[in-house]
């Protein structure tokens, strides 16, 4: 009641409080900090430091035309991400409004819109090839109708893939925001004589502004950092991430280039980090409201809503439909359907389940690790005062920085250590992949856990202290049991995000450890579309089953 929820940090420096010897949680917190430093901060720091070094040494002078290229790449990346963001918001905002306020069968649409979230974005991109490519179904339809067709490879291809992939994310974020708008607010606005659209524009949208910002940032970051789609359908439209990746894996390219590009991506991402954190705070704490929301009751509005939502869901799901068809098809050349259907691709799949096994092993190790990290870090964030707030920024880093860059940083670091004669066993092979994944996807379980921590009543812990229990015992007996449900949810999210990861995987790849995402990607790149499709269906099925299991558990 006096507005002092948390126990006040004791006087003295934060260091003195952390280093108080008999607190295992503090020790774990420090270990987590070291882990983050080794696998995230130092790699990224190295890249930036080395770039500064290169620039100061006048290295730009002997990289002819790099400056021009640099500007072009930056412009391309920003144009792509900006374009995708604008399109997604333009479709997503009305879609979310209809979705929340005027649609029958909402759970159905909810499920449909979740499907793209369960797959890596590049799956969408080879599906767009099936639809919009030179002999794609839609291209053929357009041609038959005498309409102009367009060249998919390039900006259109990437943009279409990204829009389809990020639209559901934006809609679900916006919908969460719309559910926080109290009914009274809209009803009083309407009683004052506003039309529905006026009220939506003047009252509702300003109210959910943080959610609009948040979804814009999510979309922008996803598009800016992605490497799969630009590689597959980018054609000659080169973006920063792709250039950094291709320069990095080719030995005949000056190795200063990927470092410079990566550092530049880090700098741009850091600019967005502050914004992301602010909007995240606003959209995370707010949903305390759980009352009634205003819905549009008029049959006309509901009809429009149903049509709009169905149309968009259909468009969003079309690529996945195409994948499903292709996975059973033989040659899909000229024609609206493949020439014949077969189970051949699935049979071939059964013969090479190694990538799936690899993915399950890696994700099965990295996901619990990431959850453990987020439990420990979440606790440190509450207990360490100002030092804890630092964690908040650091754990968001992998969210804003492209996976390719994180991978480049890690490989760069291990290379340097090897030069120093420090070939540590966990810095190579599968354990490096596990470390990379646990860092790269940390923001997802972290978000779940920090929300869970903020829901814990601190008084329970204070009651435990007053009964004589130590901090460790209190954590173990009182705090942790309340986190179990969130930990289960975080585990599933981490697992699915890891198994669909591509950017870091491509860079950190360790011989013998091809993952399922990588396998799909290389089949797609080699033009083995049907095989890629079959494996994609398998991946989506695995992820969907896990997610379904998790939400079933939550509902119980």
């Amino acid at each position, binding site marked *: *009641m*006096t*507005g*002092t929820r948390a*126990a*006040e940090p*004791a*006087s003295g420096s934060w260091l003195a409080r952390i280093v108080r010897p008999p607190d295992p949680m503090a020790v774990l917190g420090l270990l987590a900090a070291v882990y983050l430093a080794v696998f995230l901060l130092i790699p990224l720091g190295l890249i930036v430091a080395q770039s500064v070094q290169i620039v100061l040494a006048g290295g730009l002078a002997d990289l002819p035309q790099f400056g021009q290229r640099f500007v072009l790449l930056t412009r391309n990346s920003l144009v792509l991400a900006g374009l995708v963001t604008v399109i997604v918001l333009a479709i997503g905002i009305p879609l979310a409004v209809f979705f929340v306020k005027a649609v029958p069968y909402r759970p159905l649409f909810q499920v449909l819109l979740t499907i793209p979230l369960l797959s890596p974005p590049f799956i969408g991109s080879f599906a767009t090839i099936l639809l919009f490519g030179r002999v794609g179904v839609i291209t053929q339809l357009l041609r038959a109708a005498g309409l102009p067709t367009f060249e998919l490879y390039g900006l259109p291809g990437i943009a279409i893939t990204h829009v389809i992939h990020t639209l559901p994310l934006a809609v679900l974020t916006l919908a969460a925001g719309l559910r926080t708008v109290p009914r009274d607010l809209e009803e009083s606005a309407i009683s004052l004589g506003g039309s529905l659209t006026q009220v939506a524009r003047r009252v509702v949208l300003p109210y959910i502004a943080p959610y609009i910002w948040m979804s814009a940032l999510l979309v922008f970051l996803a598009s800016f950092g992605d490497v799969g789609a630009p590689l597959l359908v980018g054609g000659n439209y080169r973006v920063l991430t792709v250039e950094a990746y291709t320069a990095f894996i080719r030995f005949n390219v000056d190795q200063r280039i990927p470092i410079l590009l990566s550092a530049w991506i880090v700098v741009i991402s850091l600019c967005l980090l502050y914004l992301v954190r602010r909007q995240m705070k606003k959209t995370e704490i707010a949903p305390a409201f759980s009352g009634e929301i205003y819905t549009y009751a008029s049959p006309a509005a509901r009809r429009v809503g149903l049509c709009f939502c169905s149309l968009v869901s259909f468009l969003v799901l079309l690529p996945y439909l195409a994948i499903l068809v292709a996975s059973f098809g033989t040659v899909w050349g000229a024609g609206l359907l493949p020439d014949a259907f077969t189970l051949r691709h699935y049979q071939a799949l059964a013969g090479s389940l190694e990538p799936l096994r690899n993915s399950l092993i890696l994700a099965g190790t990295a996901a619990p690790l990431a959850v453990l990290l987020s439990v420990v870090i979440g606790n440190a964030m509450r207990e360490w005062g100002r030092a804890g707030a630092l964690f908040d920024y650091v754990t968001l880093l992998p969210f804003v920085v492209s996976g390719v860059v994180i991978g480049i940083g890690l490989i760069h670091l291990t290379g340097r250590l090897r030069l120093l004669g420090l070939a540590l066993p966990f810095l190579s092979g599968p354990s490096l992949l596990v470390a990379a994944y646990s860092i790269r996807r940390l923001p997802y379980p972290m978000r779940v856990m920090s929300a869970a921590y903020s829901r814990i*009543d601190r*008084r*329970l812990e*204070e*009651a*435990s*202290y*007053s*009964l*004589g*229990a*130590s901090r460790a*015992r209190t954590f173990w*007996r*009182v705090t942790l*049991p*309340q986190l179990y449900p969130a930990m289960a949810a975080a585990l599933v999210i981490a697992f699915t995000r890891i198994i669909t990861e591509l950017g870091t995987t491509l860079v950190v790849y360790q011989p013998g450890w091809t993952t399922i995402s990588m396998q799909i990607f290389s089949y797609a790149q080699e033009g083995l579309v049907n095989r890629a499709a079959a494996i994609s269906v398998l991946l989506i099925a695995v992820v969907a089953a896990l997610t379904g299991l998790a939400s079933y558990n939550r509902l119980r």
Partner: protein
Amino acid sequence: MTGVRLEQLTKIYPSGVKAVDNLSVAVAPGEFLAILGPSGCGKTTTLRMVAGLETPTSGSIYFGSRRMNDVPPQRRGVGLVFQQHAVFPNMSVYENVAYGLRVRRVSEPELRRRVMEHLELVGLADLAHRMPAQLSGGQLQRVALARALVIQPSVLLLDEPLSSLDAKLRASIRAEIKKIQRQLGITTVYVTHDQEEALSLADRVGVMHRGVLEQVGPPEEVYRAPATRFVASFVGEGTLLEGSLVSAGNGLAVVQAGPLRLEVPRPPGAARLQPGPVWVCVRPEAVQLGAGAGNPVLEGVVQHLEFLGWSVRGELRVNGLEAPLLFLCPARAGASLAPGQRVGFSIDPASVAVGQDGGPGT
């Protein structure tokens, strides 16, 4: 039995807010002290400092003769009951109560005996193996009480333990807390914003306002002889008027407030009034409709009648007074009243309190 002594306790938050300002009070062994004040007055912060959950900026906390400032909450041996009960949701009622004993490594038979004994004390023995989610708010609060008492704390601290309960339950648990506190004779500090709770439960009531303990005394004293304007307005009902001192002496103060000239008896030991402005607190029971016992009769206009069941509450507008006088009368007598009616009334000075702002003792 341990007493609690707070000496010049001050808490300033990093934001610069002074939550508790130079607070000193001593709670005798076995005494029940209620700290009463509006939300944000610093009463919860005070309690949390006693429990060791907040660190005082300056000042000292003593349990008996031992200075407790540097003792962590784990070792203070206080029993703590919160507003939102804070019963561990992942443990049964039995395990909740046993928790503090398990920490202390009490042997199993002894633990069982003490847990059941305390569950019986709060009337929950037959619910020992229920989970908290299956209990009502009142039952949860009893679990919290048993859990706090079972460790035989030297001090029991209660932070608005009843405010999340509905009115009926509140009364019954209030009676229970009082009974148990008497039975165990445990030193108790009880924080609340509800004056009824504070006045009915406590041996002494401390009234807190903006971080300052403005008055500490037995409930009757705080009600009859408020030391400050805030205490007069916060505790009990009544009308606060601005007046001036005509004369003081002989345990009697003569004050003039508009047309009212009152000879107010002063409690022994009350601060000496200085010539000048005073505040005058007229309790509703001071306003007697009809001819009073030898007090001058005045005239007022009835406003705002509220029917309260056994009584009627109303206001009298009196010419020359800045605020209408609050009065209560039995419902039967009130039945003949109507808004706008002119009535005669008198004021019993024994139910009037007088004080001065900023003077000594305020």
